[in-house]
């Protein structure tokens, strides 16, 4: 029972990471740095609460959250694909934009600087861990990993995606429209990461200021630790979530200070990048401003 509870809790915590991480894999495999994941998630969470609160219910929340995520991703694509702006700067700016905008509209919509009123979400809160199993997003989050793996490794789109991320010039000479593939990949990543935020907001039945609390960066860490592969990134998400679960369950015992448990994903990512155990090598064209004409 304890083991089952641990596993269930781990999956619950992992779902937002899973959504954002597979989104991150798609974006980075196309050659675009996924620094905006945190912003896409937070935007999705805010959209979910607005959609749910203003009469759409949980499904209206999902729809609104995805719309916000895709809109933000479109802004990102516009800046870095169309205008070839620096991806790192635009990613950071979008995160700042979403933090500011959600705060602004939180005040405007609900007259609160900290959180929204309660929304229905899926099922009642406080019914224990099992209530999460009734949340379709939980299952979708788990499914997103094999689906993305299939998309990346087994479909023509996936082949184009990888070609564009590794060698855009070669891809273009084969008639692949590089800007289009990249834009599509980023829009997908925006929708997926937003779903992670939607799940978070509906689980907590509210939006609160900066509620994603760095989860987009943990997802990015999972992408890198998973070496830009959907399945491995998924495993990394579960690993990071298990550490967090362990920390929550050991809180009363307090063997290791919580701050050190919180560091685990970040330390592992740096270790992976430093090549202590098998170097993590990013897609060749990652972060390079597009050189091909659009």
């Amino acid at each position, binding site marked *: 029972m304890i083991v089952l509870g641990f596993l269930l809790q781990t999956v619950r915590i992992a779902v937002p990471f899973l959504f954002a991480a597979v989104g991150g894999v798609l974006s980075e495999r196309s050659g675009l740095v996924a620094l905006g994941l945190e912003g896409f998630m937070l935007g999705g969470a805010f959209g979910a609460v607005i959609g749910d609160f203003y009469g759409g219910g949980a499904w209206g929340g999902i729809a609104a959250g995805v719309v916000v995520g895709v809109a933000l991703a479109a*802004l990102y694509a516009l800046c870095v694909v169309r205008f070839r702006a620096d991806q*790192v*700067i635009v990613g*950071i700016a979008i995160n700042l*934009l979403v933090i500011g905008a959600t705060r602004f509209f939180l005040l405007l919509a609900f007259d609160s600087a900290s959180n929204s009123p309660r929304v229905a979400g899926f099922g009642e809160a406080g019914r224990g861990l099992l209530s999460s199993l009734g949340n379709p997003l939980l299952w979708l989050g788990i499914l997103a990993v094999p689906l993305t793996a299939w998309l990346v490794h087994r479909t023509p789109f996936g082949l184009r995606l990888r070609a564009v991320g590794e060698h855009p010039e070669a891809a273009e000479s084969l008639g692949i429209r590089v800007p289009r593939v990249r834009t599509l990949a980023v829009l997908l990543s925006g929708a997926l990461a937003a779903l992670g935020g939607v799940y978070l907001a509906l689980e907590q039945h509210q939006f609160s200021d900066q509620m994603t609390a760095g989860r987009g960066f943990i997802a990015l860490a999972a992408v890198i630790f998973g070496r830009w592969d959907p399945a491995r990134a998924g495993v990394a998400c579960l690993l990071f979530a298990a550490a967090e679960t362990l920390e929550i369950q050991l809180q009363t015992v307090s063997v290791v200070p919580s701050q050190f448990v919180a*560091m685990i994903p*970040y*330390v592992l990512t*740096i270790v992976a990048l430093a090549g202590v155990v098998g170097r993590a090598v990013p897609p060749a064209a990652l972060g390079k401003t597009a050189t091909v004409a659009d």
Partner: protein
Amino acid sequence: MSRATGVRRASLLAPRTRALLEEALVPPLVAILLALVIGDLLILAVGQPPGQVYRLLLAGTWGNAYGLGQVLFKATTLVFTGLAVAVGLRAGLFNIGAESQLAAGGFLAALVGLALPAGTPGLIAIPLATLAAALGGAAAGAVPGALKARVGAHEVIVTIMLNFIVLALLNYIVAAHLHVPETLHTPEIHAGGVARLADLIPAFHGSAANLAILVAIGVAALVGWYLFRTRAGYDLRAVGLQPAAAEYGGVDVGRVWLRAFLISGALAGLGGVNFVLGYKRYYEEGFAGGAGFLGIAVALVGRNHPLGVVLAALFFATLSQGGLAIHAVVPKQMVEVLQAVVILAVAVTVPEVRRLLRGSRGRTDA
């Protein structure tokens, strides 16, 4: 024939200067215009008259001594973090870690201030604590620098991850060993406090502006001298423009990367002096408050030039303080949106303007 080239040269020189000016000034102007438009929309969404709100914003910042003092205080930290990011970018390195380097600097400055006996004269205590701030930032910058130089680990990811690690570590140390009960800050330092600007100019009374601003201006000048007047600075810029060419020219690229990151971290760390020694006289969890990330915006808008950084720091500080000035009528969060809009607009217009200029007169510029 010679007359023809003479004419061509004369017509080339003027456009070259003009091009430089356009490249420096067009992006910020476009950004400010766009921010004004978005700001109008947000203000109208709240149901207020935009003109009046902007007047309020100016009156609350540059319109009175207290507001101006607060602007100067906020700008001081931003000068340091902006310089930190700018030096990194000049070397071709993107330092996203200014936030945690700033925190580490402030923390070490506070530690030194706490360790020194209460009676230590400022002439000794302040330089020591300031040096500690630089060392704290440099230590945090050494990790991405060494990893980049040694194994080529991408500094953007390393500094992002390190932000979380360093901040968590500092939070742990303060929470577990150093905090004043019921608070998130250390006890007040015994020695090393920097005088407030109000002590010299009474009109600034109440504002947090302090003499760290003089350090900021001095350091900005020093960075300009280093980058543009020394051999090491030349190497640094060469590595930033063309690492392969610099390597071929005999520059140890790895060493330059490490050095640039140490300098960048130290600059960000020095920003801690402004808050810890100049304002609160203690280290507080979260005191960096995003100034490290805004440093990226400051360097970007300031075009990685010390003078530009100082001006951009004043601009972003005005927005921050202006948010407080208008909060009674429009949520201050509006300025957070506007800051992001400015960054996006500059990020988009810089390459665009460069391309336009290049397109209009062939590929003459390097």
